[in-house]
């Protein structure tokens, strides 16, 4: 009799401990936040600010590890292989899910991840030198029609901004010559030196606009005018269908993350990004604030993927099996 009681109590105790551990407070140890970009870039620095903020709210260390390379695919593969226990996250671009897997062989699929939040997005605009003979987009289009084969630099082939410029070309029946660069700042250098006619500005060009060297002619990727530059037209204003959607800066976890952990992370990150110091940082990097929670993000990803699938198909860039 007594043995039975002891055993039951023991069983109950063990059971309760098990339940207790499962319901134990998350998080209780260091969270690792991977960054899909190399150290020192604006996305990396933003991610580090996010990590710092999360530390304060969650009460555990959040360690940032750069796993740049392959346009984010290295970090994607890494995260996809981790346990969905909420201790491994990744800051990346939505392109990792909506574009890359369809273009190249990667060790993950879009379904390998749990999208958590978006906190910013990448910008793009067709930008020329201040002293160019065309100071509005209309004059530019006229000039381009008379001089086919204008050259432009971008931060890379099939980047968000380069695709954006090509949608302008398609809409207005123009032909441009694309001169790919390694990264956005090289495009700025080429434009400063006058070696190319215009650039697909990808964000790093904004200080030059502010300091009077460059001029933006049309803002790409947005469905409404940019509130910080209300007199620069968008695609709708020049009679074109919307260009490709902007890729977002997002936080991912491996697929299968438990609901409660996802909620905790979402709420913590929302708080961090709403904080004025984070907002100030975004402003300093010339990054817009665009928050999406996981539901909104999933919806946006679906739309984005459809758009890019179509684009890749039309341009014969889909990965051949």
């Amino acid at each position: 009799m007594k043995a039975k009681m002891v055993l039951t109590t023991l069983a109950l105790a063990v059971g309760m401990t098990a339940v207790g551990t499962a319901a134990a407070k998350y998080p209780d140890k260091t969270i690792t936040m991977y960054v899909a970009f190399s150290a020192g870039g604006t996305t990396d620095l933003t991610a580090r600010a996010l990590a710092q903020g999360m530390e304060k709210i969650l009460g555990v260390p959040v360690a940032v590890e750069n796993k740049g390379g392959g346009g984010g695919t290295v970090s994607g593969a890494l995260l996809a292989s981790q346990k969905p226990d909420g201790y491994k996250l990744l800051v990346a671009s939505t392109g990792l899910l909506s574009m890359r897997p369809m273009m190249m062989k990667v060790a993950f699929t879009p379904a390998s991840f749990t999208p958590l939040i978006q906190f910013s997005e990448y910008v793009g605009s067709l930008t020329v030198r201040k002293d160019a003979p065309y100071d509005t987009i209309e004059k530019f289009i006229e000039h381009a029609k008379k001089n086919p084969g204008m050259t432009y630099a971008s931060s890379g082939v099939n980047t968000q901004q380069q695709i954006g410029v090509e949608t302008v070309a398609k809409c207005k029946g123009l032909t441009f010559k694309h001169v790919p660069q390694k990264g956005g700042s090289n495009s700025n250098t080429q434009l400063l030196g006058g070696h190319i006619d215009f650039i697909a500005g990808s964000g790093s060009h904004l200080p030059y606009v502010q300091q009077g060297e460059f001029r933006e002619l049309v803002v790409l990727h947005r469905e409404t005018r940019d509130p910080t530059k209300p007199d620069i037209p968008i695609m709708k204003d020049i009679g074109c269908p919307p260009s490709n959607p902007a890729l977002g800066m997002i936080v991912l976890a491996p697929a299968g993350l438990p609901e409660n952990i996802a909620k905790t992370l979402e709420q913590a990150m929302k708080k961090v990004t709403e904080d004025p110091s984070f907002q100030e940082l975004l402003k300093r990097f010339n990054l817009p604030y665009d928050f999406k929670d996981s539901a909104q993000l999933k919806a946006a990803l679906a739309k984005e993927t459809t758009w890019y699938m179509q684009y890749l198909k039309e341009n014969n860039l889909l990965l051949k099996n």
Partner: protein
Amino acid sequence: MELTENIIHGFSVAFQWQNLLFCFVGVLIGTLIGVLPGLGPVGAMAILLPITYGISPVTAIVMLAGIYYGAQYGGSTTSILVGIPGESSSVVTALDGYQMALQGRAGPALGIAAFSSFIAGTIAIVGLMLMAAPLVKFALKFGPAEYFSLMLLGLIILTYLAQKSMVKALMMAAIGVVLGLAGLDSITGMPRFTGDMPELLDGIGIAPLAMGLFGVSEILLNVERQIKRSVVVKRVKNLLPNRQDWKDSAAPIGRGTIIGFLVGILPGGGTVLSSFLSYGVEKRFAKDPEKFGKGAIAGVAGPEASNNAAAQAGFIPLLSLGIPASAVMGILLGALLIHGIQPGPLLMKNEPDLFWGVIASMYIGNIMLLVLNLPMIGLWVRLLMVPYSILFPIILFVALTGAFVINGSLLDLYLMLGFGVLGYLMRKFEYEPAPLILAFVLAPLLEISLRQSLIISGGDVSVFFVRPISLTLLVIAALLLLSALVPSLRSKRQQIAARAEEET
């Protein structure tokens, strides 16, 4: 005069105690990072960036800048002592510097490296101050066509690097080109020679390549030698360069400074390219080029001068136009942004404290580095007296660690080991690694410039000859090539003539 006012203002900023303190911290860390093979200033600066959040932007940049040019001083230390390049810009120093160490002259080698770095760095800062604006305008004139011609010039210099068989050196260069092009093709966006490994999409890292080819191979070659390698020296007599050393180094330092300064200004130029160019030029203009590769002090003085000059010159595009000329400058750009400073043409005007304060602190930093490095020479040389059996495992371990922390990637370790074995075999059969590395560094920029130029010109090849700067560079390249071939042609004719005489 406005310039003097600015300079005085700059020094008044630089001498503020927190700027002095952080300058010292920066150069100290930089030296340490430079000495440690593998981890470079880029990694260290990124890691230390958060520390700068709470301090003023000037102080932040002063410290970060110190890490960068400090690393150029430190990198030569491991190159000279053990033949492992501590920094990619010190690869060339490993050629003759290490040989000098083997001959018991590690002290003078380290000394000349420190002094060359100091002299060149200081002169470069003066150039920065006086000529920033016109120089950067000149740099902007370099479009893709000019870069192509410059890279071609660099490849021609490569022919001067060959010590023994020219054929084998050229073969190594071709291999270097292939390795350098491995990765994502920027123009098509498609991978090349990556074997489907995503880690290779950004190319093969220069650190695992250089450390493997030079360092690991050296360890392997030493390990199999049965004679107990009494590393270097029984008694080191002079720790500093003697008068003859100074005589031999004076001109190389001068030339190295100019080369480094000019190449460093160009976005994409950089410390690696300038150090190789300087070595090639020194060998070309030396009275006794056969000494190179066997411990010619000019082969240390020139490259060390040029890599420091290039490091200082690299600040010019950033500070005057907001253009990051290299990955390091990219981090500084991020640091500026974090502190609310918008880089660009107006930086000099809007932030005189920053601009002149940082420049002034570079003088101070270079002096600090000289004071730091010179006394250390005695310490380093003593380190060499540690028996090799204890030394090399530690070196190997540190190299593996250093290579790992760059990307956190095991692939880099496999690459380093693989290149180590390759280097070991290559050196047995007298294939030299230096031409491979130079070609490796040049190839990507050479190729992308070629294709970009042709896209812009619509396939018209004359673009390289019509543009004046490009044409000038090509003419220099052709002259250098001819002058390399002609003597050998002449000696060939003399040989044939001599043999003909013998037979009659």
